[in-house]
């Protein structure tokens, strides 16, 4: 399953260059197809030679992703993709690294790694496919399943409160946090471009439909017929407006969000670049039906990346020492004696 022919910088790539010879094995109608198609559409536009692109995944339906993208790829073990990506990116900062994970892989078994990769701010892109269920293991509740959800492993309903992936990312200080959806390909493609352009960890929650085990879970707000009333599209510098027939906006009272009539005073303008994460966090907590569900870029701030700092310390140490360390001197140590 190697790539065919050499590619190099400057070559014009097309979507076809990023398709492998592997048969895609997701269930017919799975939301993952839409995500794959948008990723393959966006990759050739990035101006990055494909040998420099790497997809790393864990375990789960979403984690089959690397097999279908004709770049370098690594289908690792459950939950550990962010850690594998960390080692790879530190070893070679020139690579464009994408992590593909899911709500179970990224937030349950791999929750620890996800948090730490974001706080370290590795320059990688994390796509978390959130379908609210374990698909590959055939339908158990996941950390993002709603309270009370009936599944094979929760016949009387789950007794667990769900986690909110976007809130977690903001709390973990990811420097770029966005949310999009499989059913909105244009927004999805745009969000992927934004994520790719950002330097630092880009976290993208992709609301995805599992047609087999959790069909229509996001439909109450994402269904085409209701989306424009129940989704808040976040646009930088624009007022937070939603509702096609009856436009309304978001404002705050104290720290709490509230819905106000369009253009009333106090209506918030979206500023993802704020250093203080409070507003981004508040937005991430808006859930249907009390509020519209925001899609878009919640947070985008500049912070030095981990690999820059790590290599910077190495370069600095070499510079300070007047050149790379001398192995002979190191082995000899600070104090030695000679026997004749």
């Amino acid at each position: 399953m190697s790539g065919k022919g050499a590619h190099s910088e400057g070559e014009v790539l097309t979507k076809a260059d990023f398709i492998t010879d592997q048969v895609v094995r997701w269930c017919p109608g799975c939301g993952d197809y839409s995500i794959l198609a948008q990723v393959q559409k966006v990759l050739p536009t990035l101006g990055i030679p494909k040998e420099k692109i790497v997809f790393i995944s864990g375990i789960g339906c979403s984690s089959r992703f690397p097999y279908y993208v004709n770049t370098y790829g690594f289908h690792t073990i459950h939950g550990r993709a962010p850690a594998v990506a960390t080692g790879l990116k530190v070893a070679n900062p020139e690579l464009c690294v994408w992590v593909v994970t899911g709500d179970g892989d990224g937030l349950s078994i791999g929750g620890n790694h996800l948090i730490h990769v974001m706080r370290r701010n590795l320059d990688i892109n994390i796509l978390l496919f959130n379908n609210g269920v374990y698909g590959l293991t055939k339908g158990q509740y996941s950390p993002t399943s709603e309270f009370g959800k009936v599944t094979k492993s929760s016949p009387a309903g789950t007794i667990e409160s769900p986690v909110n992936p976007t809130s977690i990312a903001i709390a973990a200080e990811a420097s770029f946090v966005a949310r999009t959806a499989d059913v909105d390909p244009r927004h999805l493609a745009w969000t992927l471009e934004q994520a790719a352009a950002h330097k630092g960890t880009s976290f993208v929650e992709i609301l995805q439909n599992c047609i087999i085990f959790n069909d229509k879970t996001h439909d109450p707000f994402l269904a085409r017929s209701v989306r424009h009333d129940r989704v808040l599209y976040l646009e930088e510098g624009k007022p937070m407006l939603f509702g096609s027939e009856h436009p309304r906006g978001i404002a705050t009272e104290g720290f709490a969000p509230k819905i106000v009539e369009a253009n009333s005073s106090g209506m918030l303008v979206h500023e993802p670049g704020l250093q203080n994460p409070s507003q981004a966090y508040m937005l991430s907590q808006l859930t249907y039906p009390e509020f519209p569900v925001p899609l878009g870029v919640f947070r985008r701030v500049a912070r030095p990346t981990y690999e820059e700092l790590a290599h910077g310390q190495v370069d600095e140490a070499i510079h300070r020492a007047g050149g790379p360390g001398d192995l002979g001197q190191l082995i000899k140590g600070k104090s030695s004696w000679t026997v004749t």
Partner: protein
Amino acid sequence: MTPERAANRPMEHPTQDGKKLPVEPVDRVTIRFAGDSGDGMQLAGTQFTDTTALLGNDLATFPDYPAEIRAPAGTLAGVSAFQISFSSYDIHTPGDQPSVLVAMNPAALKVNLPDLEEGGILLVDADTFTQGNLSKAGYAKNPLTDGSLAGYRVIQVPITRLTTNAVTEVSGGGSMAAQSRNLFSLGIMYWLFDRDPIHTIRWIEGKFKNNPDLVAVNRAALQAGYNYAATAEIFTSHYSIKKAATPPGTYRKISGNEATALGIITAGKLTGLPLFYGAYPITPASDILHALAPLKNYGVLTFQAEDEIAAITACVGASFGGALAVCATAGPGLALKGEGIGLAVMVELPVIIAMIQRSGPSTGMPTKSEQSDLLMALYGRNGEAPAAVVAPSTPGDCFWTMIEAGRIATTYMTPTFFLSDGYLGNGVEPWAIPSLEELPDIRVTHRSDPEGYTPYVRDPRTLARPWAIPGTPGLEHRIGGLEKNDITGTVSYDPTNHQRMVDLRAQKIARIADSLPPSQVDGDSQGGDLLVVGWGSTYGAITSAVERARSEGRSVSHLHLRHLNPLPRDVGEILGRFDKVLVPELNTGQLRMLLRANYLVDAKGLNKVTGRPFMIREVYRGIISALEGTR
């Protein structure tokens, strides 16, 4: 005093004030510094070691400290000790028993006295034998006055008071005395064993260069101890230990963990690969991270991971990216790393896992040593997941064995275990510094040629797959933990392919044996009554015990295995040349089980799991009882 005596007669040696005290030459001395964890015993021991190394004695050390950073002062749980054995001849262990015990408080006395040689020197800080301290140590009566120490040469010195006096003179207040009592004791030991304190004085000056007060205080305490010993007539003589007759060369002292860190840097240079070290803090492996982190000018990227799993999987990622990836851990960490190592087995990427073994199970005794993770290294993964395993035998050998681990990992594209332990890692010995020309050539090149490339096409000799790294045009490929097709590397559930891949992964590890030199038997390589087979840190005790048995004319030989997976090809044949096989191990018989399973040999075990290393005499006794009935 019962150090091993040299034949020479005592000679006269002037002391500082012109008085003459005899200097008695001795061949070997073992001192144990023992006190509360806050008393600075590790520091005193380390300073004595540095000075002794520079004098040219052979030496070996054994630091033994509690896991608690500061257990309640004065309690048995808080006792910390540092043992050094030094001699005028080649020695292999820090000594079975101390001939000199420095006990800084009653608890230290209580814990360590049972080990002191009969008639040995016992130096105590008499000031600490208060009612409170005695009861904290569980003494009903004061051992200094109840006659229970009659079998030793007890030297009672009011160390606390004398240190306070000395410190007050230079700092105008005795408040800093408590922290320098160790240096007072060290000064006494320097005088007693005829070593110049200058090295330690220089060290004090360097360490506290920004605080002249501390320099003055510490120097005063050290000198006061030295002068006190010279003038107070507490000793009737002092002792000199001649330089050891070491082969010519340049030496340094080195601990196992230092040598491991040096080996890691060196393996990086020799392979020509970028070096990635990923680790999560764990006793007793953290010192390797501490040693590497400041060596950034050697190009090493150290990554302190969020957990043990992230440490190994980041290593796998770095290895995918073409780096020499190394991690170090101890048993609890390895238990967590199993799945990540299995991934490296499946995707056939090199990773070095340095295991600094400690007493288990579970958290066990973190600061105590054991060899109980051999089978976990060999078999502690799901599925048939073979990996290479090597083990260093001495602190200095950690350097060489780490380079060997680097050779195996990168030549055979396999995770490779390096099985050290707490005793080796913390133990110190003089080490012959190699020249760069002595180091092996293990240069690695990544695949760049797309012609005929597939991810699992194999080198016909080593069976290794090509190391093709992201960034290389034309070699784009996908790997993963799912079973894959031979050669193409595509995902496969084909039954015959799985059989074939399991066999290939096993054969690849087995073929490492083709690259190993013939095994070396110390003793009678042609065979004899008994072969003692060991691995890892028991090398010193086994070597000394076998030497002793052989000096008595017994037919005993020693095979020490550096390669534990695969075992060298000649091991079975060597075992067959001996009537009996004895396998001393600090576990319940893990290598023994492997030898019995592999060679159907009736190997007997000599096993101990107390958290402490073998004493020479324990192995010696094991040899004698194994020999009984031979001939």
